[in-house]
């Protein structure tokens, strides 16, 4: 058997230089490949929030909203309020008071939306009943999505 070409190795070198370099190359290649593949594969996984909340947003479970009650939800970066009337109807409005941008709340005793800042009051159509607000509250479209009994309230812009 013919001996292979000797690789210039310094006499007494304790390691195989060529092998080390190949190993280094392999490590480098794999680590860069991982540094690229990992973010890309994570990117492909759909995020929990679904899609950009421009036109619509989730507003919680329908079952968690008893009649004559309301709760605040997030619509983009502005608050919204979803109300279930005493009759069971679900409505949603922008919770930003049209007077000075305070967040409105629901008053079950009068069945009206009320702003604590300056006593602005709106009816359940979003219209101003009394107080300083100059315009009605923006009303949103409400849909229920999901299995019966476990529906999610989906609010979209009109």
């Amino acid at each position, binding site marked *: 058997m013919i001996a292979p*070409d000797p*690789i210039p190795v310094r006499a007494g070198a304790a390691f195989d230089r*060529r092998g080390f*370099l*190949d190993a*280094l*190359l392999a*490590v*480098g*290649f794999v*680590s*860069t490949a*991982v*540094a690229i593949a990992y973010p890309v594969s994570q990117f492909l996984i759909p995020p929990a929030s679904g899609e950009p*909340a421009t036109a619509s947003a989730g507003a919680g479970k329908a079952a968690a909203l008893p009649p004559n009650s309301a709760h605040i939800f*997030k619509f*983009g*970066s*502005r*608050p919204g309020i979803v109300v279930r009337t005493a009759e069971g109807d679900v409505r949603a409005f922008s919770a*930003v008071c049209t007077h*000075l*941008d*305070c*967040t409105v709340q629901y008053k079950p005793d009068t069945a009206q939306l009320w702003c*604590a*800042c*300056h*006593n602005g009051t709106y009816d359940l159509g979003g219209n101003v009943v009394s*107080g*300083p607000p*100059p315009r009605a509250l923006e009303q949103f479209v409400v849909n229920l999505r999901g299995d019966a009994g476990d529906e999610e309230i989906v609010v979209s812009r009109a």
Partner: protein
Amino acid sequence: MSQIIRHCLPLIAAMALLAPVRARAQTAPAANACLTCHATQADTRLATPARLFSGTDVHRERGFACADCHGGDPAAGDKARAHDAAKGFKGAPKGQAQIATCARCHSDADLMRRFAPKQRVDQAAEYATSVHGKQLAAGHGDVATCASCHGPHGIRLVRDAKSPVFPTNVAATCATCHADPRHMAGYTLPGGAPLPTSQLADYTKSVHYAALTKGNDLSAPTCNDCHGNHGATPPGVGAVANVCGTCHAVFATKFQTSVHAQIFDKACVECHGNHAVLKPSDAMLGAAGHAVCATCHSGADDKGAMAADAMHGQFTQLEAGIKRSGALIGRVKNAGIEVSDQELALREAATKLTLARTEMHAFDPARVAPIIAEGTKIVASVDAAGQSGAAELRFRRSGLAISLGAILLFVVALGLKLRQIERRSHH
């Protein structure tokens, strides 16, 4: 003269057949010779009423005619018979006579029900209680009467945007007299000082005027909202807070609980002015020279000054905190961190600030402090989130630095490998 006869002759025949109408407008409309003659007059004082009455006029549209207010004979073709006092002609009624002319119908509930069932019928009675009514009764004939504001002819409904008493036009209508120094000469305030004529100029600077004319908010107040319509009188001592409070209820309630309610008979007006009600700012509060509080409060031992300063400090601190937090969140958002929860929270903090500014009208720092504290807590949590957002950005950067290290490692290894290959190929 012959002109008049020529114009009136054909009508005389028609009028002979038709009955003159008084307060029965639902039957066939009467002939109105008054208009025909007056419209052709060269003197505008005679022609203008005819022109106006022939245009948009609420009375004409419901079948009323000149004679219903002025009396006389509408069927007559010549002036003498048309202006016959025996037929009830009273000319152009002025002063009390004018009030009586309008009130003849407008204070008659049975009559008004047939035309405008919801309309009130107590305007004349209210007018008698007003400053205008009292001055008229005292003999001053140049005060406002019905026609001064509503116009004598070409009267439009109040809800008609061209009516002089439509909300956006009221201030200008009142100002036709009240802004005229010559007209107002001789009238004085209760204390004896001459009646000012700067109300309109002041009002146009106010937030109420801006809301009414630019904000399209017809519920914003103009002269009659605070002074009354027909019973026009400035709100008296002790009544100002109630008047402002009809809209600004929360502030009035808080004010009534405060120490100032006992002292200030002019209530809200003391600090905010009556006509030139400007947009309020935190600069009005405090013991500094330019602040409104400093008008009465000054000195280190003045409890009021200390309270004002305390509250001012709290407001400026929370406002600055909100702004700073907002800027941090904005920077972090721009760099790509999700911050919608924090934006919502900052809205809540701003709501707290608004609530605190309302509470301030009780003039008690101890009541304002807890609201401010809630706002400050929110700002602190948003700041924390912002800082962790900035930390996340730094973390991303360090992650990328590690990837960079991996790439450079590979580059070095590849370079060395190349050198090795090339050295080998030289053999």
